[in-house]
């Protein structure tokens, strides 16, 4: 068993243990910590020089079917490594931020198992080097998401929301499946292995590339809440229990972006070039239109939901630019956004637990006076999400913007990509508006309803731990982006090369 296999299956083993009566919270935390340790070990042992885009480290493969060649195969390259680190960090924080066993209404085992299952599914999808399991693990993670929102969600509409997200993501996955099958047919259908696909990938005719890329873009786009396929996300995140919101918005949603970079772009470079303009228009919808929609939100949870949707636009911008700088920015932003949104949801969960609501007008204001630590941490999270220097988000966004201008270093003529870059920069203002507005409304200003808020306690040390973990990760990468970038460079340079050629 390799480290990668361990990291994918450790949460599943923990789920089994929980089902057989092991104490849920302790087991989940042990599994998450073990995964964090394993991820750390992998990072230490990860060689920076990975040459080709097909090459993976810690590869393992168990043959399940001879024809078509189906393997339970895992392995890591730079992108996977970064996303695995993201996943283990958020998983630990999410499990930790889950309410103590006594305070969960309902089946505690289910609650903790679901979080672990989501983590395992995400890890499997990020580590799989086989198209079949790449897809299957993501599907695995969707089931507990649905259950958790439907059973433990807040709000009266949670059942409806659960169905909406399930159908939405189900349809997205189905479209994606169609695209992947078409891709398999074009590549000969003999093997699901990424390496084999890459080997024959550049022979796909241009017309087929265009068609398949469009299907994949829509399929992945739905999963990432690309405008206008985003309607599922805000209510789902608003009503999901805290750990699920953290895991889905922070980690699982990155699957679609990962898929675009891992599958669609290297295999279908001409398709990517052909649909670039469409992608630019859609991502501007994410950033500008949904940015303004975010401003109009009156509840913190939907606001965070929309903001998470909006920020996907920047990742798409990095992907659309398709050069080394932009792609680095995109992957780093996936990491940074994943951590910062998880952090925000964790803290919003803490606010909800104290105040019973997340409606900003009902909350009143001045919460920072009663809960200074909560206010301080939320401030960190808000500024991280705005993209302040010192946090990984800033480095990533800067790279995305530089990436969008990189193609015209020679010609010096502004094209669609650059205009999209300029317009999306306005999103930086928009996100500052809504984040600071929320921060101002909830935490700043005079304390209203003094009596009602008399019993509000600050964050306990246990509650601070996951937030601190995430903030430290964000700031470490923000101060020294090279920590992660060095792993990405070989893989992403290869992908950028294939897009150019």
């Amino acid at each position, binding site marked *: 068993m390799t480290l990668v296999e361990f990291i994918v299956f450790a949460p599943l083993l923990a789920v089994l243990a929980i089902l057989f009566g092991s104490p849920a919270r302790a087991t989940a935390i042990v599994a998450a910590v073990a995964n964090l340790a394993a991820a750390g070990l992998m990072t230490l042992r990860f060689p920076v020089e990975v040459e080709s885009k097909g090459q993976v480290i810690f590869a393992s493969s168990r043959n399940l079917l001879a024809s078509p060649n189906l393997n339970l195969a895992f392995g890591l390259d730079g992108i996977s490594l970064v996303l695995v680190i993201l996943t283990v960090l958020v998983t630990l924080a999410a499990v930790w931020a889950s309410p103590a066993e006594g305070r969960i209404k309902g089946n505690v085992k289910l609650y903790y198992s679901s979080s672990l299952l989501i983590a395992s599914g995400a890890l499997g999808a990020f580590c799989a080097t086989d198209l079949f399991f790449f897809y299957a693990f993501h599907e695995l993670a969707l089931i507990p998401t649905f259950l958790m929102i439907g059973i433990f969600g807040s709000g009266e509409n949670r059942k409806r929301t659960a169905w*909406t997200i399930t*159908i*939405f993501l189900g*349809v997205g996955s189905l479209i994606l499946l169609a695209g992947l099958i078409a891709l398999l047919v074009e590549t000969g259908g003999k093997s699901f292995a990424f390496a084999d696909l890459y080997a024959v990938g550049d022979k796909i005719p241009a017309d087929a590339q265009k068609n398949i890329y469009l299907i994949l873009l829509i399929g992945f786009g739905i999963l990432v809440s690309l405008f*206008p*396929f*985003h*309607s*599922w996300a805000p209510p789902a995140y608003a009503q999901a229990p805290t750990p699920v919101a953290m895991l889905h918005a922070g980690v699982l949603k990155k699957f679609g972006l990962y898929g675009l970079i891992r599958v669609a772009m290297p295999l279908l470079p001409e398709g990517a070039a052909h649909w670039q303009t469409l992608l630019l228009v859609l991502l501007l919808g994410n950033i500008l*239109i*949904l940015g*303004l*929609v975010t*401003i*109009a*939100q009156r509840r913190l949870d939907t606001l965070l939901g929309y903001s998470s949707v909006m920020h996907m636009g920047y990742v798409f911008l990095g992907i659309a630019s398709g050069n*080394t*700088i932009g792609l*680095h920015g995109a992957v780093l932003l996936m990491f940074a956004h994943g951590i910062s949104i998880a952090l925000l949801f964790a803290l919003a969960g803490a606010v909800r637990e104290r105040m019973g609501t997340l409606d900003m007008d009902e909350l009143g204001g*001045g919460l*920072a*006076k009663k809960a200074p630590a909560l206010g301080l941490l939320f401030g960190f999270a808000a*500024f991280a999400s705005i993209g*302040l*220097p*010192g946090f990984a988000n*800033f*480095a990533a966004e*800067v*790279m995305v*913007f*530089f990436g969008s*201008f*990189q193609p*015209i*270093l020679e010609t*010096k003529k502004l094209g669609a990509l650059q205009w999209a*870059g*300029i317009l999306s*920069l*306005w999103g*930086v*203002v928009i996100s*500052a*508006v809504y984040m*600071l*507005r929320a921060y*101002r409304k909830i*935490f*700043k*200003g*005079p*304390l209203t309803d003094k009596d009602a808020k008399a019993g509000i306690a600050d964050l306990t040390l246990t509650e601070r731990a996951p937030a601190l973990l995430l903030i430290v990760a964000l700031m470490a990468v923000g101060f*020294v*982006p*090279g920590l992660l*970038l060095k792993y990405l*460079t070989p893989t992403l*340079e290869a992908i950028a090369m294939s897009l150019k050629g």
Partner: protein
Amino acid sequence: MDVNTIAWLILLLPLASAAVILLGTKKSAGISALISTGSVIATLVLSFLLLAQPDTAAAKPLQWLSLGDFEVTIGLKLDSLAQGMMIIVTGIGTLVHVFSLGYMHDDAGKARFFAGLSQFMFSMTGIVLADNFAMMFIFWELVGVSSYILIGHWYDKDSAADAAKKAFLVNRIGDFGFMIGILLVWVLTGSIYFDEIAKAIGGVQNANLLNAAVLLVFCGAVGKSAQLPLHVWLPDAMEGPTPVSALIHAATMVAAGVYMLARVSFLVGAAEMAADTIAIIGGATALLAALMATQQNDIKRVLAYSTLSQLGYMIMAQGLHDGSDAGMFHLYTHAWFKALLFLGSGAVIFACHHEQDIWKMGGLRQKMPITFWTFLIGTAALIAVPGTSGFWSKEAILEAAWHDHNYLVWGLGIAVAFLTPFYMTRLFVVAFLGKPRTKDADHAHEVSPIMWVPLAILAVMAVISAYITGPLEAKGHVAFHMSLTAILSLAGLVVGVLAGWKLYAGCDRDPVNIKLFANKFYLDELYLGIVRLFQDFVGMTFDAVDRYLIEPITVRLPALAAMSSGYVLRLLQVGNLQAYGFLFGLGAVVLIWLIVF
């Protein structure tokens, strides 16, 4: 100590101080204050050491981002411009820290305050020492946050919380342009490093794009230095504690825009159209702010508008041919006397139990003699009384405008020279002379030495700083020529002071009432309207579109299609065995028919 150690210590000491306070000594305010003050004094000493370095000095850079050709480093540029600016920043920083020890003595958030100050010192140092645009942008953003934190220090006051938010957001709008400008400069010259840009700027062919790039870079300065049309945040920023106003919103941070333009003066020089625009915006800001200042009643707001006005001068100078040095000279002198005025007003406010309305003061001359005299010196410098530092630097700017044959800008500058003495005389006469108009003013008494000593030092600097231009290395000159400019500005001084004295001496209420100026040309209301329009109307509209158009199309429509087709198909489920049998048989027959024939 070698230059690397000095430079990096200057940058990192304040950061270390902020980190130590945040992580460790948050609970003990006194120690925190001392740590912060100690760190800034240390950086002042180090900055003096830095003065000995040659103009070409630079510290070993630290890599931040590196992707093949694209590299962003944290490199420290230690040329004379940076050296001089560091003296201003750390010098005033030191005095403000010391003053704050007294001013913030009993504040509940004292530790937080000093952590914020340290963080600001770190960020500001970063801007000053930056050797490339990306690094400058990083610290540009960071000073914005420091400013946000410090303006909102008393965050449980609605006005302070709002002002902090406003300052940050308005600055963000400027940064939006700044970032695009940086990207365009990068595209045009292939580099983000000032030295390399300077080398490559000659080869840039695309004049339009260059003009656009420079103007967009200037946007950053418009935000940070509060020029029209983004000036609205600065007066509101006075909600912060007064030492903050002195340090950040008068002497240093707001001057960062000027500094940045001076840093890239080669860029501005290469883009003529952009340079003219910069000069005009600077001049217009100077004039409008001066007009607004004439009708303000809050002592800090008057000073804030005068800061705006003086910043307009500096920006104007940056847009002039050969005016960059004059602009920096004015930045240098202005920093001292404006910090003096703000700290002086802080002392007054402190003495009057946080009363800021000048009409509720009066008669402070007897109660607070030291403050009175230092404030008088500061005022003299600001209104450019010959001999004081402000006189020399302002003359330099006006002369530069005259020599540039930019008569529109020159005219604006002269007009401001008439207005400044007027409103400062008004402020001084109303606040310090006459009789105490309220009980608070009556009970005021002189502040403690820890507060008046910095005032005294600043007062000395306000007079003599123009004569010790060592830190600026030949950027400022004490030189006087009899010229039209000089005559007019001296006339402005005399007319302004006399008019102010005549109108306001002995008044209990404002005899002049110009609503347009008092209400700041209604620009705040206009902006509020625009913001409302965007936040509430456009935001709501898109929200509605999202909720009632996009969601129905992407969610409801497929759901409806699925449900209706399900309903239709359900009609087939009659529950009768034979009906099923019939359908089954029919299907079989049709299938066979289709397959066989």
